[in-house]
């Protein structure tokens, strides 16, 4: 959108014309901006920011959750390099994210567009789409485990119509992650659909009208009206989806507990394991920082890509 670019340019013009006036505006804007942010920011600093900053110290310490962390320099980081379980979890997390992110985005976007139309019974279908997100995760895992059952599950019975080499799903190191991804997409598509739907509804209808007058077909309207107008929402959905995917935990915990072997062990579960099962909060913080760094790099790429598109 034009908002981000227009303003620095405008500010520059002002500055050359009247430095003092510009300073006054900046001061007023800073004051107003901070006032608006303050109610949230105060809570945010004390409840989130300070503990998160503490994490950066703990990651370089030995800490069992009791007493004060003991600084131990790079010991944790050296351990990271040779830790086979960590690297397995690292690989699994990327595998999961790289498949799950595009898949969920596409499914959620299709759902949102479909359920944004004047479809009869859309309230019903929207509710249905949101249901997986509110169904108890234990129930979801149970039914999916049954559907995925290698011998008698519905999915393999269907696949046997086409091939005799059916996957072993949750009992196989190759297929367990695929099963987890399918269930995760099933579960989260409705959630992201809600966010995208809200974004779709803020697009001014006149834009579509203008595009149609220009002779754009449905696909062109989608690509040249919907997508650009949705950019802020898409950015938000992409970032939360990315971070959420890299931080995936509850589903693998309930469905596979990281197994078989370490085939579905992800970083967040490893963090949890090292902290609460092995009592090593120092090393767990180190792994957390790695996960944090991955999320931040991907987010920053999205952030700057998004800005370049807006320009």
């Amino acid at each position: 959108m034009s908002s981000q670019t227009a303003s620095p340019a405008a500010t520059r013009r002002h500055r050359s014309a009247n430095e003092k006036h510009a300073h006054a505006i900046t001061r007023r804007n800073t004051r107003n901006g901070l006032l608006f942010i303050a109610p949230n920011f105060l809570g945010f600093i004390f409840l989130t920011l300070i503990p998160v900053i503490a994490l950066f110290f703990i990651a370089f310490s030995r800490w069992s959750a009791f007493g004060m962390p003991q600084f131990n320099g790079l010991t944790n980081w050296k351990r990271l390099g040779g830790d086979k379980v960590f690297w397995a979890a690292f690989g699994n997390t990327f595998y999961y994210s790289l498949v799950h992110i595009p898949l969920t985005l596409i499914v959620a976007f299709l759902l949102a567009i479909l359920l944004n139309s004047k479809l009869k019974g859309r309230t019903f279908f929207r509710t249905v789409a949101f249901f997986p997100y509110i169904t108890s995760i234990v129930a979801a895992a149970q039914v999916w485990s049954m559907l995925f059952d290698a011998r008698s599950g519905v999915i393999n019975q269907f696949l046997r119509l086409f091939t005799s080499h059916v996957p072993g799903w949750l009992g196989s190191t190759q297929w367990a992650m695929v099963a987890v991804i399918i269930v995760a997409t099933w579960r989260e598509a409705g959630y992201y659909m809600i966010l995208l739907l809200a974004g779709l509804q803020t697009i001014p209808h006149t834009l579509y009208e203008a595009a149609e007058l220009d002779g754009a077909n449905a696909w062109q309207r989608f690509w040249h009206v919907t997508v650009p107008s949705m950019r802020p929402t898409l950015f938000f959905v992409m970032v939360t989806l990315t971070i959420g995917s890299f931080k995936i935990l509850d589903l693998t915990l309930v469905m596979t507990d990281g197994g078989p072997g370490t085939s579905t062990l992800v970083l967040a579960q490893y963090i949890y394991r090292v902290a609460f099962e092995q009592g090593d909060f120092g090393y767990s913080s180190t792994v957390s920082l790695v996960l944090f760094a991955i999320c931040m790099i991907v987010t920053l790429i999205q952030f700057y890509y998004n800005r370049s598109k807006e320009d």
Partner: protein
Amino acid sequence: MNMNRHATKALAAFAAVSTIAMLAAGCGSSSSSSQQSAKSADSTNQKVTITFAGWSLDQTPEFKTLADGFHKAHPNITVKLKEYSADDYDKQLTADISAGAQPDVFPMKNLQKYYTYGHESGGLADLSSIANSYKGNKYINVSPYKLDGKYYAMPYRADAWVLFYNKDMFKKAGVAEPNAKWTWDDYTKAAAELKKKLPAAGYDANSVYPMYQHNWQSVIQSFALAQSGKTAQQTFFKANFNYLKPYYKRALDWQDKGYTIDWNTSFTTKVQYQAQFGTQKAAMLPMGTWYAATLVSQQKSGDADKFEWGMAPIPQNPDTKLPSTPITFGDPTGLAVSSKDTGAKLAAAKEFVKWASGEGGSLALAGIGTTPSYFSPKVQSKFFSADGMPQDELSKTAWSKHDTKAENPVGPGTDTIQSDLKDANSAIMTKSSSIDAALKDATDKIKSSGVLQ
């Protein structure tokens, strides 16, 4: 315009409701801290209230039984229960101790966690005086809690693993019941026989199995370690897992021959062992003695079928000499006292732990079918007098006479080794990798983690 008006109106209404709700929230904060503070320490007949952590209080009667029983014996001390989660107790306790906010008395679920808390947290009071009072007492074993020459917890229940079996199914199938001399080979033989004869006795061949091997790693690994004849220092803490191999070979064999539900089905569909044995889907079940009480109550409530059952000593390692006392495993559950306590409160908390670990608490627990820590003849007869408990001699011996090793050997690095062995367990049991490959992988991972000394 429609939407605008609606949004603003909805937000305003929402704001009003929320403000009221927020005011109400202020009144809800707990008042526990004010009740806790007992001031002067000297007078002995002063009323003292101590807090006691328990989980799932409505479903787990042991905590209330202990609290009430103790209050009856010591009317000036009131035990107030704090509710914790059964599944995530250690997470909550870690947070509590970390913030110095632990209750006065709290359970230690297993020895490994006890080691962590005792060694690292500084949140547990020294209970050596209670341990010394049990010196030379053959009814109770407090040695698992010895840590650097001190004791930071006392046991109040001491479950051990035994073999549960369905007498009706054995009788109907015409298979000889387990005896005190069984090895795992005898167990296998009986399973083979049951597999053949159960369908003829009218049991559904598709859903009824000779045994149920639950999906916990301890079901294989802790037996193997306890019965290996070697010390954990020689094997476990050297990441040398050869002792597991024969146990895994047998387990895979049972699974392949259909003697038990396969591990993957059991794990992914969350099979409840209580349902498998309780509804007669399995004739034999290796399980901890805690299950006796559950089975009795489920047979009463109708969740389990009515049938005759018994307990036998757990089968022994066929590759070593048969020991005089059957070797099994099981961690005691202990009670610890907060190191923050002083004066009258500390004295009251210690008194409570002493009572709970001794004959008084054990009688109360035996009365509700819980296996307590103090195995005097009086406690044993109380346990077996409960309606629905088996009465045969084998069950009584199985329950009271065993050489019980720790579920996991306790020491630095245990948790990491256990995590990697858990992964190996799922890899082997799903046949994702061979026994040798999975165990070698575990050894490599443990070595790469740097926890071995």
